[in-house]
């Protein structure tokens, strides 16, 4: 097999020359050699592996923290080396950036070479055609000149590039698209990377939990989690908003995969901007809402029990639903209620169990994700909630370090628990659901998609088009006929040349036949 002249395939690299420009040139050559590309590709595969074995901050920060806690000796080292954020680590970036520099350095010169090749006629016929991998020889009655003209016409009509040497041979070449496709493929890969980078720099993504009946408007403060590219500022956010009217969910009740989710969908009332006409839509998994360039995806859901709390004075100090976060597949959920304004301050930690069960070893837990037998288990605290210190606090945890536990109780909807010591009461009224949404805007994704499609087209052309050359030589025989030789050579490997040779030879003979019949 042959490779293009711009591609160096030398296996043993020469020693670097002395002198700085010579050395730089040598370095560049090494970097853009096919062997380096191969090694860098391999390296890219290898450095991708740890990120699939260890939990990653980008996808699962909670599990990273757990992992670090459980492996106190190895974790700090791994952390310092970036193993919990592999795909943002400098060594990972180094590999793919080197690969892409190599790619550009390799592909750009090949464009020039290819453009020249496109304008160069096929090479002259080799002396001994019978040495080529596919070869045929036969005799025709007509003189060589006519035979060759015929051959040239035939080859041209089948879109070969043809060069003739009158009276001697015809040379033809085909399959230039292969290299074109290959170059397009490699360049399109660069554009895919550009698309990814644009998304990383200009895109943003946030997560928000919305309870049934409440709303969301697209401003930074409303998000529970938020991440944006370097060049994206929060005041560029589109001013849309929506309310979650209803959330439906359904779980498998059959024996196989009991409890697996089967459906969830959210009915939203959407406004493109404040004051514009509201629209009703339904968001499902795989069917996001497109909101002003951003997309609203339904990614999770859970329960939000409603409580009414009265304090020692008997006045209602809390009347709302509280988001409880699911901890397992059966939606055993945890949550907290903080009421600094009660007299005295009250705090509750609790479990919400959609289908409650209580066992010796597991304690209270849920055995099915749907609310077949809902219950809450609450723990009441009084004392300093620690909310005055000014330090930001999570709404999902209660700092009980300076609080006193006053009791434990389990409640089903409608139950009221009279707190001990006349501290007040808490009523578990009923429950709503909440849905969590990921809202994302990625301005690079169209470019990434478009370039991947182009890359695929280029790749297919590159792999399926065969570049090959063919020669037809005509030699006059003593009886006025012609000895014809047809031979072909592949420019890339695994080219099955025989069909081409057979085809051309057969067509040339077929042209002879009517004439032979008349003679």
């Amino acid at each position, binding site marked *: 097999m042959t490779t293009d002249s711009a591609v160096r395939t030398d296996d043993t690299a020469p020693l670097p020359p002395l002198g700085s420009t010579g050395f730089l040139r040598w370095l560049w050559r090494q970097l853009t050699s096919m062997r380096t590309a191969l090694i860098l590709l391999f390296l890219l595969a290898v450095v991708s592996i740890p990120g699939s074995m260890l939990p990653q901050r980008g996808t699962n920060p909670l599990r990273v923290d757990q992992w670090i806690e459980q492996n106190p000796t190895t974790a700090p080292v791994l952390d310092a080396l970036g193993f919990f954020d592999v795909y943002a680590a400098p060594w990972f970036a180094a590999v793919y950036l080197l690969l892409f520099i190599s790619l550009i350095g390799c592909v750009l010169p090949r464009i020039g070479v290819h453009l020249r090749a496109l304008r160069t006629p096929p090479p002259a016929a080799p002396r001994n055609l019978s040495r080529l991998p596919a070869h045929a*020889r036969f*005799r025709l009655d007509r003189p060589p000149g006519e035979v060759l003209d015929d051959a040239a016409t035939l080859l041209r009509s089948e879109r070969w590039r043809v060069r003739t040497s009158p009276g001697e041979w015809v040379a033809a070449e085909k399959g230039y698209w292969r290299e074109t496709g290959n170059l397009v493929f490699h360049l399109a890969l660069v554009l895919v990377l550009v698309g990814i980078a644009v998304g990383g720099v200009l895109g943003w993504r946030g997560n928000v939990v919305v309870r049934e009946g409440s709303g969301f408007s697209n401003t930074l403060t409303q998000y529970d989690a938020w991440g944006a590219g370097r060049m994206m500022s929060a005041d560029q956010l589109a001013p849309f908003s929506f309310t979650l009217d209803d959330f439906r969910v359904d779980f498998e009740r059959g024996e196989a995969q009991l409890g*697996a989710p*089967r459906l969830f969908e959210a009915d939203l009332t959407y406004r493109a901007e404040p004051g514009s006409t509201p629209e009703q839509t339904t968001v499902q998994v*795989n069917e996001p809402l497109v909101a002003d360039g951003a997309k609203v995806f339904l990614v999770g859901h859970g329960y939000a029990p409603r409580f009414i709390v009265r304090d020692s004075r008997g006045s209602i100090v809390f009347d709302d639903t509280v988001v409880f976060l699911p901890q397992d597949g059966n939606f055993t959920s945890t949550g907290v209620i903080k009421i600094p304004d009660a007299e005295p301050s009250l705090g509750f930690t609790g479990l919400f169990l959609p289908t409650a069960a209580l066992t010796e070893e597991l304690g209270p837990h849920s055995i099915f994700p749907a609310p077949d037998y809902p219950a809450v288990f609450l723990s009441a605290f009084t004392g300093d909630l620690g909310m005055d210190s000014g330090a930001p606090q999570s709404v999902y945890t209660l700092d009980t370090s300076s609080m006193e536990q006053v009791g434990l109780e389990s409640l089903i909807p409608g139950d009221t628990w009279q707190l001990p010591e006349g501290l007040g009461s808490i009523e578990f009224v009923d429950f709503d659901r909440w849905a969590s949404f990921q809202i994302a805007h990625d301005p690079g994704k169209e470019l990434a*998609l478009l370039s991947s499609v182009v890359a*695929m087209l280029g*790749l297919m052309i590159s792999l399926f088009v065969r570049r090959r050359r063919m020669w037809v030589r005509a030699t006059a025989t003593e009886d006025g006929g012609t000895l014809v030789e047809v031979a072909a050579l592949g420019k*890339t490997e*695994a080219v099955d040349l025989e069909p081409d040779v057979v085809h051309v030879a057969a067509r040339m003979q077929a042209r002879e036949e009517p004439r032979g019949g008349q003679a």
Partner: protein
Amino acid sequence: MTSVQLAEMSNAFVYATMVTLAIAMVAFAASFAAGRRPVAPVVTPVMEGAGGTALLVREEPAESVQPGRRAGNVGMSLTWLATLLLLVGVVLRGVWAGRVPWGNMYEFSITAALGVLAVFLVMSIKRDLRWLGLFVVIPTLLWLGLAVTVLYTEAAQLVPALKSYWLVIHVSAAIVCFGAFTFAAATASLAIARGRVESRQGTTDVMGWAARLPTRERLERLTNVVVAFSFPLWTFAVVAGAIWAENAWGRYWGWDPKETWAFITWVVFAAYLHARSTAGWRGNRASWIAIAGWISFLINYYGVNFFANSLHSYAGV
């Protein structure tokens, strides 16, 4: 027909496939043991007498010099039969479940086995692949055995994230790729084995068991043809998966373990294609890379479904 009957029939067809494949395996083994591989058809350009027009006479070796040929034919016919049986089994499974038959690992496994057999048979239409039969049938049998014993699951509905036509496109492409990568791994392994024998005996005209195989050179080319066909398809499968992920989770690429291993598989096969055009890498090293690519596909399938905490862990085992 009741749904229980459908399920039982699907299972019966899968078992029938395994029995048929087992017999095919015996036939292929017998063919392999019988002696030399049939000599590849030779094309000899022959000039017939002056004025003649015939050319390129194809010489087929005589039937009698090919011991084991009949057993090989029996093996091929049984493989066709087994593939049809498996096709029926897979279709019935899909009818029973009322959806595409790859909602869990059991279903994916039987469909993937169908992919392996189908790729082998399609490739065998234009080539004599009786020598390869043994090396395709054995892993397929193991694969199916694993599916019916360890992975078997009752059919259930898909989790919502999997209800997407992109899933259908993505997974069907992946299944064909799996068949092709398995084929390529088999021919690459045989190329390595045959290469050993060739260099030990110092000739490409070897004696012994490896004589049944094509030359190392031809095996490597065959591997290359199959990878060159499946690499664009795998690229497509990965892109389709990214489109699906974008629709389901709001990002087209998130380095989830499943995505990561799909990427690794892709990169390894890109490395294979590069190795095929790099001096010093074209031979054994390229074959090893093809095998590594197939292994990374398997890791993606088994390792990630069982062990990793992945959004894609819908295995249902």
